[in-house]
């Protein structure tokens, strides 16, 4: 196993309130990692700590350097949780994606062309010139995914990327991420509540509910009582295996 990211006893919170406590995880390079956990469990907090948007105690190491140092030279592919931002601002979809290329030393023309490629990846090329405020919620989300990809970062951090996305976009998103991941050996960390869909693609799932709930492999997780511990005793899970060739999906249910 080639380690990419190491989170060493990270504790973070807001004004004295501890949101995540003493979390330590090692994450493998080029793998698809999924953070699960109930609302308020601290997923967003952990992702924002890794992204450098909030301060924390402990250490986060990427490729053997402190992430604080790493960030000075490298962007991270980041997608905020939906509804975290209010996008009533006169930038077009293409201009939004261009943000991801801020750091690249390339001409404006090259920035535009590259950004357009990423818009194509998320099937939004036909909306390149449309103001972001005029797009639907799901379309905005796709543009923001393209923006995260446009950073060409080795690390993709996505906070509930698929909330509010239609099923076609969801499976396309996973396929796209799989493809990019293989091609550029991306390490992907997403948070999600979608047990079935996510675990079909995930290579490593870990659960946090303030502290780390002991983690295991995706499929094993479904057989163990971890999910029950997290979401309560009335949850019912349908297993959902991913086969990359065929269009799926069997349903998964979360019942109360």
């Amino acid at each position, binding site marked *: 196993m080639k380690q990419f990211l190491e989170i060493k006893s990270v504790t973070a919170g807001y004004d004295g309130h501890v949101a995540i406590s003493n979390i330590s995880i090692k994450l493998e390079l080029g793998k698809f990692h999924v953070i699960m956990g109930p609302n308020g469990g601290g997923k967003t907090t952990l992702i924002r700590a890794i*992204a*450098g*948007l909030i301060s924390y105690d402990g250490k986060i190491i990427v490729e053997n350097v402190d992430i604080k140092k790493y*960030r*000075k030279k490298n*962007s*991270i592919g*980041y997608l*905020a949780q939906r509804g*975290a*931002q209010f*996008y009533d*601002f*006169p*930038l*077009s979809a293409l*201009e*939004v994606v261009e*943000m*991801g290329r*801020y*750091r690249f030393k390339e001409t404006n023309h090259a920035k535009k062309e590259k950004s357009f490629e990423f818009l194509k990846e998320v099937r939004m090329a036909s909306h390149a010139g449309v*103001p972001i*405020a*005029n797009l639907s919620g799901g379309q905005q989300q796709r543009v923001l995914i393209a*923006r995260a990809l446009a*950073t060409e970062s080795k690390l993709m951090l996505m906070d509930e990327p698929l909330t509010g996305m239609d099923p076609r976009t969801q499976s396309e998103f996973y396929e796209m991420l799989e493809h990019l991941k293989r091609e550029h050996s991306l390490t992907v960390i997403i948070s999600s509540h979608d047990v079935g869909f996510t675990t079909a693609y995930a290579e490593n799932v870990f659960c946090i509910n303030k502290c780390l709930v002991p983690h295991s492999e995706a499929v094993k997780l479904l057989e163990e009582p971890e999910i029950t511990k997290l979401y309560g005793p009335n949850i019912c899970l349908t297993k959902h295996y991913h086969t990359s060739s065929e269009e799926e999906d069997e349903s998964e249910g979360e019942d109360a």
Partner: protein
Amino acid sequence: MLEFLKLPFMQRTLIGGELVAIIAGMVSPILVFRKMSFMSVGISHGTFAGIALGIFLGISPLWSSMAFAVGLGIWIGFTSKTGKISEDATIGTLFSFSMAFGIVLISLSKGYHPDVMGYLFGDLLAISPSDVYFASVILLITVLWYLFRGKAIVYATFDEDFSKIVGIHVDFDYYIFMAIMALITVAVVRFVGVVLASSIMIAPAASAKMLSKKFSRIVMIAIFFGMISIFFGIAFSFSLNIPSGPSVVFTVTTIFLISLIIKWIRGKRGSNNVKMV
């Protein structure tokens, strides 16, 4: 109405005024999208204390108001960033204090009592060549800043978190912006007065925002609106012999109302089209 153009000192005033309009138009969209209108009101009133301090100490009011405005701008920015004290309460308290402090200082100044009305509401006759030079220097600074940091400030206005992630020093840029905005305010105050200065820094972009959904176009329209407002403002001020501030505000407000009507008509047409389909 246009005979003022024949007078050399009015030509100079007009050139200075137009320079100021360009600068104001450049920053005004950022102010509007960052919802910093009230901050700009606070800073423009704050310059009055700076001006009065200059008069009281017998130094150039330009320098003292510059120092005062930049200090105030950064301080307001700091309270806003750190969020420890409520920003609007801070500004509300500060700007009444600045006015009070200014009036006290001017009353205490021995001998020559300057025309307070002129400082408050703008006086075209008081504009000197040095004001025009000052405006050109500020324009130069603003253009340079735009070239180097424009994209970063637009990005940070749109999405601060992501801007941080791609390596923009969001806080540093913000303080630079506050300082530049304060300098611009000092230049604007000379032409429209302390009380009404913020109108020319806010209304052009507020109008332009209703007409376009493209940031670069909004900036162009805001500059254009600012320039028309100053032109007619100065023309009315001269021909009707009224202070320049109010006449600029009248034109600015007229443009705002026209933009509002255009937006309303466009909106109506839009919904009619939907019905037709």
